[in-house]
């Protein structure tokens, strides 16, 4: 077992591109498994306090961000898993989704950076605009897990988009570009996982299970 993991890590280091499809499958399976376990526990724990509801614009921006990540994730994973690499329409749609993603990532960051602070003082709902009349102001707007996923989305989003933006400049050579693509791949995978977790926690929150 130790040997297998060591080999896996070595393979990841030497040929990250070749290992990527396997890593995608393993990571997605692991994520779904963890979510299912967490869901089971959450459902068993009963209802939690209701958290502030979102403004319609907030919802639209969030949906836009989720949609763009879905486009990016589906186009890349399907292409990589089916064809080994991204080509043709998959690549074009990926690029198209990337344009939307950078804008939505910016909007999400501006909109939610403050309420997602991980320190105690700012964890409670802060804006009355965001609250329904019947919402309890004592319930923090986001669960801790949601916040962690949020910051992970921002961080991986910056790395994912940044690597490709830098690659568009005549700065890096072939080797540098290949390294950028590998970083892009794995940061993108982290982004997708973080987005799944974020969406999951948001749904749980809406169900008052988190």
């Amino acid at each position: 077992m130790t040997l297998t993991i060591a080999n896996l890590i070595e393979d990841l280091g030497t040929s990250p591109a070749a290992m990527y499809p396997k890593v995608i499958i393993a990571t997605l399976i692991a994520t779904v498994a963890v979510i299912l376990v967490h869901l089971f526990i959450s459902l068993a724990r009963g209802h939690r306090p209701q958290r502030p509801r979102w403004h319609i614009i907030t919802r639209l921006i969030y949906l836009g961000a989720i949609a763009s990540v879905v486009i990016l994730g589906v186009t890349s994973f399907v292409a990589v898993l089916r064809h080994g690499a991204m080509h043709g329409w998959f690549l074009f749609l990926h690029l198209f989704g990337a344009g939307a993603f950078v804008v939505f990532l910016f909007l999400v960051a501006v909109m939610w950076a403050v309420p997602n602070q991980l320190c105690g003082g700012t964890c409670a709902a802060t804006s009355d605009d965001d609250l329904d009349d019947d919402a309890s102001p004592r319930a923090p707007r986001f669960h801790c897990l949601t916040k962690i996923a949020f910051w992970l989305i921002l961080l991986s989003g910056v790395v994912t988009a940044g690597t490709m933006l830098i690659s568009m400049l005549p700065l890096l050579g072939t080797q540098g570009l290949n390294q950028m693509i590998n970083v892009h791949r794995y940061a993108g995978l982290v982004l997708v996982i973080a987005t799944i977790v974020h969406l999951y926690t948001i749904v749980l929150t809406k169900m008052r299970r988190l």
Partner: protein
Amino acid sequence: MRLATQPSSAPFHHTRALPAIFIVLVALHLAGHGVIAQENFKVTRSGAQYVHHIQLYDANGVLIDPTSPNAKPYSPKQTCMKCHDYKAISHGYHFNAAQRMMEGAADKDATDRPGEPWIFTDPRTGTQLPMSHRDRAGLFKPSDAGLTRFKFLVEFARQMPGGGIGDQPAAVAPVAAVEGVGAGDAAKPASGGTVDADEARFKFAGALEIDCMMCHSNSREYSHEKWIKQVAEQNFEWAPGYALGIASVKGSTKTLPNDFDPKAEDAAQKLPQTKYQVDRFDDEKAIFLDIIRKPSNNSCLQCHTTRPVGEDAPARWVHDGDVHIRAGMACADCHRNDIGHHTVRGFEGEKHPTGTPVHTLSCRGCHMDEDNALTHANLGGRLGAPKPLHKGIPPIHFTTMSCTSCHSGLLPQDKPGQVQTSMAHAFGLANQTRDDADLPGIIQPVFLDDAQGLLTPHRVVWPSYWAWQEGDKLTPMDPNEVYTKTLRRVLRIRSDFRGEASKATLTAEERKAALGNDAGKPDGELSVEQKEKLDAALKKKSVETFRGNLAKVLVELGKAKPSEKAQPVYLSGGKLFALAAGEGGGITSVEHEGARNYAWPLAHDVRPARQSLGVTGCTECHAKDSPIFYGSVTALGPAADDQPITRAMHEMMGQDIKLLQAWEQSFGGRDVFKWVGFVTIGAVALILILFALLGLNGILKLVTRRR
């Protein structure tokens, strides 16, 4: 040092023989396992070039006395095999076309890819048949054109180094097998004779052995032109010595009848006579031959020259040639081989017959490392190959395109240009009648996917030939028969079917119809527009004339059908031309699979980075008028055709036009995309930094408060 050895005549006592026998048995056993291969051959093991003062042997292995008036031509096989493994050499890529591809190879999974074919060209009949003994899709077999082993050599040995089907006795396969290799049919008799009759000519023409000196002579005296002339005279056995410049040859076997008996009493007088330059031999009948291990570029170019032709072809003095050669490299630096002469072809994914990894001898392997893996086996940089920067080029280009797409051949133009090659156009023989329009018509670059799915520039030729059509089946006719029985008799064609069958002049009425009142003007006084009108009218008439003549020929051919359902047809430029049904006659033409092009990847001449495709920016390719995607490929053939098959390059590639257009449009907003991307991602990065600092501040406060 004499390399030729005579059997020892020293007494061999039986008591001494026992250990010797033991050693021999052990040696044989080891040799059987390939442990001490080539132990039968003398080797120096020195890195220094061996100086060849050697004796020469004739085809029967008899030492040549150069002073003898009946001296026989020297045999490279018998001379060189004293020290070199001729049998192993004969399996090499240059000699093994008629063998099973990898016979004698250690690695049976060795790979092949389409290569330049031999193109049987007969201008009298408008025939150009790309062919090979190798099993390659889209190529004809020599037997399809009525070429026996002998006739194939007479036709193409001008650019062959001998060996293979030229070796006699058949070193590679029986004649019938050679003729039928991959064709799935029995050998066909050549026109004007039979397979046996042609085979009989080897008895006095001699074998066309591998001429080692064609590649390994370092002497400028070696004349490829002399080789070509001897081959044309069917003096196969005499060609090596004459080309090497050590002997003069008088006479020809070409004129001898098939039943000539070389063992007859007076035969020697009728066979070619060899006269050696006796001054070059020493007292021991040895001669100095300036031999090099690594062939010079000049040797390679004798058979592998390519020359862009036509109006748009750059003048030769403007052309830089291959960057590797300019840098001082030799062809054989990359296209190298061992004693088995399995010359490395250098394409990506090549598996060498010896099993030796050769991936670092391909463009990518040498310049970019294999899989970016930092293991010494995969590291490139051989011979100091620079690692390309490719700054800002998305890596997807390197997984979908070959290096040659951007770096090889001439830059793509609106239309691929014509090119002539040594193998196809018989370069090397001084000739005053060479023309840019000489058949066969080959164009380059045409961008197509290679076997690995990488976009690669190709050279393309469309076959042209006369055939019998029965349903979907096409059986090529023997061009000689077509000419002698029909073209010469019906159309009085002399040498150029294409030109003579479509030759037309405008009548006074036709000239007037084209030029109106200016019809009387001399041609020199016509405007450009008027000349164009005149050319168009003449071209139209040429096409009509050609079709009329073609109909006459097809009618004549149809009188001697091999079967009731067989119909004579002519294929050219991707189309099949046949007689139209009904009394009206005329010609119909349709695109046909039987006239489909044959394409092979081109690799040279390689252009350096700053001369590569795309160096001026993305829109050099990703634009609506870029030659690489929108260049217009027109099928070439001898048939006069005013509506030739024309395809856009992206159609040839099988690219999705909508996707291409989408990419092109995306480049319109690429700068905006970059700006928006950098601003938004920059802002998010700042937010991350800000809140990271705030978080750090919070943690510090927490720690301070607890204390």
